[in-house]
C-alpha cells in the first residue's frame, strides 16, 4: 500500500501527540492535540475508511478541540502557573507501552497484509446503520442529547 505515507503520517501523529502530552503551555498542547487528531484521521484515510476519518475531523476538531480551548479560556486565572510534571505517571505509561508492544510483537498472527476490499461507500455504512444498527444509533442520539443537557446544567450558573 503506501508504506511511505504510513510512516509519514505515523511520525506526524505521534510527534503531535507527544507534543500535546508534554508541551508546557496548555494552549499549545490543546492545539497539538487537534493536529494529532488530524493525523489519526489521515490514518483512517490510509485504511480506506474516509467517512470515519472525516467524521473524526468534523467532530473532534470542529467541536471537541473548540470546547477544550473554550474551557482553557474559562479557567484562565491560573493557566500561567505550571502544575509541573509527575514522573510516576510517565513511568507507568512507559511500562504500559512496553507491555502492549510485548503483547503485540508476541502474537505472530497479526503479521498480515491488508486484503483487497471493495471501496467502503457511505451508502453501505448508511444502510448498515439504518437497518441492523438502528437501535444503537437511536441510543447514541439519546446519549448525545442527554450529554448536551447534562453539560448545560453542570455549567449553568444561577443568576444571583
Amino acid at each position, binding site marked *: 500500500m*503506501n508504506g511511505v505515507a504510513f510512516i509519514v503520517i505515523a511520525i506526524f501523529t505521534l510527534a503531535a501527540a507527544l507534543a500535546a502530552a508534554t508541551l508546557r*503551555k496548555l*494552549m*499549545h498542547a490543546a*492545539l497539538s492535540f*487537534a493536529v494529532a487528531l488530524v493525523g489519526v484521521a489521515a490514518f483512517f484515510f490510509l485504511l480506506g475508511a*474516509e*467517512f470515519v476519518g*472525516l*467524521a473524526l*475531523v*468534523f467532530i473532534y*476538531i*470542529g*467541536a471537541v*478541540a*473548540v470546547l477544550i*480551548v*473554550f474551557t482553557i*479560556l474559562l479557567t484562565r486565572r491560573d493557566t500561567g502557573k505550571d502544575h509541573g510534571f509527575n514522573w510516576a505517571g510517565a513511568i507507568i505509561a512507559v511500562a504500559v507501552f512496553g507491555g502492549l508492544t510485548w503483547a503485540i510483537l508476541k502474537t505472530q498472527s497479526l503479521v498480515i497484509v491488508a486484503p483487497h476490499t471493495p*471501496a*467502503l*461507500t*457511505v*451508502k453501505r455504512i448508511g444502510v448498515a446503520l439504518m437497518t441492523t444498527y438502528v437501535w444503537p444509533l437511536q441510543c447514541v442520539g439519546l446519549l448525545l442529547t442527554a450529554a448536551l443537557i447534562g453539560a448545560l446544567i453542570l455549567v449553568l450558573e444561577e443568576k444571583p
Partner: protein
Amino acid sequence: MIKSIDQVFVNAKHWLLSWLAGWPNWATQVVSSLINILALLAVFLTLFALLSVLERKILARIQNRYGPNRVGPFGLFQPIADGIKMLIKEDIVPVRADKIVHFLAPVLIAAVAILTLGVIPYGRNMTPFTIDCGILFFFAVGSATELAVFMAGWGSNNKFSMLGAMRAIAQMISYELPLIITVLPVVMVVGSLTADRIVAAQADYTYGVVPRWFAFTPWGLAAFILFFISGLVESNRTPFDVPEGESEIVAGHMTEYSGFKYATFFMAEYLGMFAISGLAVTLFLGGWHAPAHALEFIPSYVWFFAKLSALLFVYVWVRGTLPRTRIDQMMNFAWKFMLPMAFTCIVAAAVWHYAGRGLRGWLWSLLVIAIVYSGLSILLDTKRKFAPRVYRFAE
C-alpha cells in the same frame, strides 16, 4: 464540438499528464493533484482580486457613487494596488502575543478555505478532488475555521480580539447547525454525499423548460434561502459581520494583524465566500447544468461561474443594503427560526419524495413549509421576542 469546448480544460490536463507516461503511479497522482491545485488557485485568486474591486464598485453604485475607478480602466487594477499595499506594509506582532499561534492562525484559515474549494464540481467531470463523501469533507474541513479564528483571537493577546474571536465562534457554531441540516434534504433526496451525483440528479428538465434544480422545489427553495443566510454568517459577511464590526470592536480577531497576514485573512474570507456559494450552486442551482435544454450548448463551467457570480452579486448587494444585526438577535434568529425551518425542510423533502416527486408532492411540501413558516412567524412575534437586553459583564 460543443463537447470538446466543454471538456477543454479536462483534455488539457490529460494532455499534460500524458507527458509523464513513464513515471510511477503515485508520482502521476501527485502531479495531477498539483495541476488541479494550481488551476484552482489561479482561477479563484483572480476571482478574489476581481471581486474585491467589483464589490467596492457595486457598493459605491448602491451608495450612489462611483467607487475605485482611478487605477486602470474602470478601476480594474485596484486589487493589484491593494495587493502591493498589503505586501509592503509592516507586519506588526504584539510583544507578549503567542507568536506561534499568532502566526499559524492566518495560515490555517487560508488552507482551510482552499481545501473546501477542492470538492466543488466546476464543470462536467471537472471536480478537483473526488472522494466518496465530498460534502462531509467540505464541512469537516470547514469546521476548522472556528479553531483558526480562536487561534487568531487568542494569539494576539488582546482583549478585543479575544472577544471578537469568541463572538465569531459563537456565531459560526450557531449557524453551522442550520447550514448542515439544510444540506441534509438534498443529500437525502439524491441519496449520496458526492457532489457529482448531486449535480447529476439535477440534470433533467420538466416540460423541457423548467430545469429539475432543487431550488425550484418548495423545500429546495426554503433550504437554499436558509443555506444562503447561514453562508452569509459563516463567512462573517455584512448583515452578520459583528466580529469585525468596525464601529464596535475594531477588526475583531484580526485587529492585531497587519500587512500580509491581514491580507491572507481577507483572502480567506473571500475564498470562504466562494466555497459556500459554490456549494450552494452545486446543491440547489444544479451545479454546471444549463437552465434550459436549449442552452445546453454553452459549456458547463460557464454556467457554474455564471451562477456563482450571480450569488456573489447577491452577497455584495446584501452587504450594501442590510444593517448589522445585534449578536443576541442573531443568536435567537439562528436557534428559534433557522433550526426549526431547517428541520421542516427535511420533513418537506420527505413529503415531496413520498408524494411522488411530481406536482402533488410539490404542493404538499409547499403546504408543510407554509404551515410551519406561518406558525413560527406567529410564535416568534417580534414584539415579544426581543427581550430587553441584559448586560452581563464577563467575570
